[in-house]
């Protein structure tokens, strides 16, 4: 697919090609926030130091996160003419061996994970094999990435450049087809036909609501009023979710390009990126990318000679979860308190400064260039009838292989959790999957064959949300889970409207007392009534969806609530107040070891007679358990 190449883009292309032609060995270190947290920094330094001693010219750069966070720190070595090798759990001490192997065009097998034989340039629909010559035996022995369980059923569209390019390099982005979509849109398409393409692609918002993106753009384009604004929601407040961060840190230009296309389609000349306060690296990467795009003429006046003018500003979020909500975000951008307002008046008509505004999530914007370049039909060919394309999920909790996973819409939850995620930690069993972030719902293991798309997850009382997937095993108490998420939402409630402010606090009170063994028979109906007032009555979707954790656990794990309330028992053995320590009389030798260990003086018994624990004195600290040489103390 070749398009007319505007001058500004051609200049960067030329620089990019000059770099590529060097074809020297290259080492990439996954240095997104997740990689750095697992020690990528010292690894990078060690690699640089080791390379400096060699004679061979070698390029060592940072890259983003390729999703396999459970294997971090991750290092990839490009062996020109051969293949690309991925290493995992790399320690600084491994650096000399990796450098040596790379210089020799082979692999340091100790840390090797898999081999990538071809570079897929998604935007240009090109699969470029690295291999021109044969591989040595060691390289042949390594599994290909396409056969690696974590990668084989993934499909990277949003993450097309994450962990592949140096996010600080505009040339590398352009070399993989970057900004060609923007050039195509601005020079060859009319705004209406762009909107038509986005509509036909079936793209829906990735920030939670799943609203059809093309329709939003159309409404904003048609809304009377000038100027118009496009906004990127990079507030990402869901605890445990970090796909937006990974995309910004690994591929910042993709968002800028998506916004350029959107601004032209909608008729906006100013864009804002609202980034979460806690994402300093993402902000740095974005700042640099914006500067590069401006210098290259991709932002500013007369972009690509099309006459379109567009610039982007970065704003740092105010640090509250609710600021990710569209109206609160816009209030915060205006410098007011980040509080939601009722949306009877839509923000596409009256948004930022009361002007037509189009707000989309990071991942939504990032999909746009791919749709424009590869075509709406290509995109619509991926996924299900109602949910098109791919979605990035952050797979966390007790999954064996945790990380960011991008799959086509409609694959089963089982495939994501068991195939890609490798199921739960050894010796445990899968109990439930919590999807959709804090206000999502829990889906029991029995329903694992549900396809992941907007409708199916919604039908089960959960939601797609922004793509959080928390894997829970048999050691999880579902009442405790509901309490945990409710506590989060209660803390984040802005307090403006009564149902959410007061309702979430009472909901937490009730859940807490159930977990503490003080639950009452009427608590379940009370939780249900509180859910009604919050769902039906809250001003914004925070309160409106806050009962989901409670409702979904009540739906699928009601017996656990009942066990807590009626039998004062926590079946999963999590709720401390409901646990009892007991000495099995037959196993007790009466050695008194536990008596000495117990700080509460709750254990009594004559020497060499079976001892007993006085439940009213027991503080449930568990210190007696390891103290008993007979293993006679059990927890029930």
């Amino acid at each position, binding site marked *: 697919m070749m398009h007319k190449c505007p001058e500004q883009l051609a200049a960067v292309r030329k620089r990019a090609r000059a770099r590529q032609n060097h074809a020297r060995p290259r080492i990439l270190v996954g240095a997104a926030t997740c990689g750095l947290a697992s020690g990528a920094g010292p690894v990078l330094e060690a690699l640089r130091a080791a390379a400096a001693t060699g004679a061979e010219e070698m390029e060592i750069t940072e890259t983003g996160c390729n999703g396999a966070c459970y294997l971090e720190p991750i290092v990839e070595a490009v062996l020109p003419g051969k293949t690309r090798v991925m290493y995992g759990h790399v320690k600084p001490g491994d650096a000399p061996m990796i450098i040596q192997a790379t210089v020799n065009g082979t692999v340091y097998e100790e840390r090797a994970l898999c081999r990538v034989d071809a570079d897929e340039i998604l935007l240009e629909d090109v699969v470029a094999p690295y291999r021109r010559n044969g591989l040595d035996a060691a390289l042949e022995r390594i599994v290909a990435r396409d056969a690696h369980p974590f990668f084989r059923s993934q499909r990277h569209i949003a993450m097309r450049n994450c962990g592949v390019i140096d996010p600080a390099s505009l040339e590398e982005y352009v070399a993989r087809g970057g900004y060609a979509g923007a050039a195509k849109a601005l020079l060859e398409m009319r705004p209406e036909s762009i909107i038509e393409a986005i509509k036909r692609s079936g793209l829906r918002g990735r920030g939670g609501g799943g609203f059809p993106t093309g329709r939003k753009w159309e409404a904003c384009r048609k809304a009377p009023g000038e100027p118009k604004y496009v906004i990127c929601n990079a507030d990402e407040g869901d605890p445990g979710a970090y796909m937006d961060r990974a995309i910004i840190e690994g591929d910042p230009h993709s968002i800028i390009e998506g916004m350029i296309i959107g601004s032209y389609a909608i008729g906006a000349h100013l864009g804002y990126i609202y980034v979460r306060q806690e994402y300093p690296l993402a902000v740095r990467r974005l700042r640099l990318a914006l500067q590069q795009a401006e210098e290259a003429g991709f932002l500013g006046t007369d972009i690509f000679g099309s006459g379109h003018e567009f610039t982007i500003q970065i704003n740092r979020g105010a640090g509250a979860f609710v600021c990710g909500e569209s109206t609160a975000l816009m209030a915060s951008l205006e410098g007011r308190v980040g509080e939601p307002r009722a949306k009877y008046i839509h923000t596409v008509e009256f948004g930022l400064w009361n002007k037509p505004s189009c707000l989309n999530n990071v991942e939504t914007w990032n999909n746009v260039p791919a749709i424009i370049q590869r075509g709406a039909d290509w995109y619509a060919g991926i996924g299900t009838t109602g949910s098109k394309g791919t979605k990035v999920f952050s797979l966390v909790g007790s999954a064996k292989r945790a990380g960011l996973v991008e799959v086509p819409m409609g694959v089963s939850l089982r495939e994501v959790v068991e195939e890609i995620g490798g199921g739960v930690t050894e010796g445990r069993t899968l109990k439930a999957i919590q999807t959709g972030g804090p206000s999502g719902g829990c889906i029991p293991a029995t329903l694992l064959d549900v396809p992941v798309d907007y409708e199916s997850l919604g039908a089960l009382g959960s939601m797609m949300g922004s793509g959080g997937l928390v894997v829970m095993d048999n050691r999880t108490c579902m009442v405790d889970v509901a309490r945990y998420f409710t506590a989060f939402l209660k803390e*984040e409630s802005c307090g403006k409207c009564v149902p959410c402010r007061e309702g979430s606090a009472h909901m937490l009170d009730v859940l807490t007392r159930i977990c503490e063994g003080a639950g009452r028979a009427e608590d379940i109906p009370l939780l249900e009534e509180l859910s009604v007032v919050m769902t039906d009555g809250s001003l914004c979707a925070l309160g409106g969806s806050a009962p989901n954790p409670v409702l979904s656990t009540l739906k699928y794990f009601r017996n656990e609530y009942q066990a807590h309330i009626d039998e004062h028992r926590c079946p999963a053995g999590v709720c401390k107040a409901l646990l009892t320590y007991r000495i099995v009389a037959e196993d007790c030798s009466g050695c008194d070891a536990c008596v000495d260990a117990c700080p509460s003086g709750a254990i009594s018994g004559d020497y060499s007679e079976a001892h007993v624990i006085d439940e009213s004195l027991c503080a449930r600290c568990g210190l007696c358990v390891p103290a008993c040489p007979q293993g006679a103390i059990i927890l029930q």
Partner: protein
Amino acid sequence: MHQMNPVNFSINGRPMRAAPGETVLSVARRNDIPIPTLCHHEALTSQGSCRLCVVEVSWGDRSKLVTSCIYTPYEEDRIETDTPRVRTLRRLVIELLLARCPNVDVLQRLGWEYGVKPGRLAPEDGRGKERCILCGLCVRVCDEVVGQHAIGYEGRGVERRITTPFNDHAAACIGCGACVYVCPTSALHYEDVENVRIMKEFQTRVELAQCRQCGRRYAPAVLIEKVTRCAQTKEDDRHLCPACRRRTFAERMSAWMQKQLPDARANGDRLDVTTRAGG
């Protein structure tokens, strides 16, 4: 779509017509259809936060709850103000507010009207001694009507409170008492003690000015200044307490009438005292 034309819709089966931009609540009030409200005041921007004014709107075969104080109807909306779903929601909202403010009589009356079972939601952490329902009327009146912006919110969720900047003496407060007046639950008070007005909930003291005639301390000096600036009252009127002002006015009026009446009679005119003197 923002409406540019009047909208035809119905409330409880009665055909209604809303002016462009008019809310369902406003139409209902014009037509004597009762809808309870707590955070609404016709002089202020609605914020839709108490959720008591919910009504059910149906269009086609779908329906949902909307807050009538901010919802502007669409053509052919069918609004019902007293369905079971509406009543349930109002009952629960009142129950939540009563748990927070058990001693507020407005809420007690509403609780009785909507059948709230008492005592089910007893907060366990000291919540429940409040009078403030956080309707925000005081914040808005101070901001939008008085123009002082002396008070605002602090904290979020159930920790949210109405307070002054830094919880300290509010420098912007002119002691006008609009917040006290507008508060539906009598959560705010002021008291005039000797030469100061104390805004009790806001740690704020404002100096009271003296009446030039009787010497009584009658209103905050900064308030008088502001009123003079805004309303352009006569220089010599503004330093008088209401009683002295009334007396002065009456004296001036009778002097003026004495002068006018003979001339008027001579011309055969009828003197319209109400419009000319009162206007």
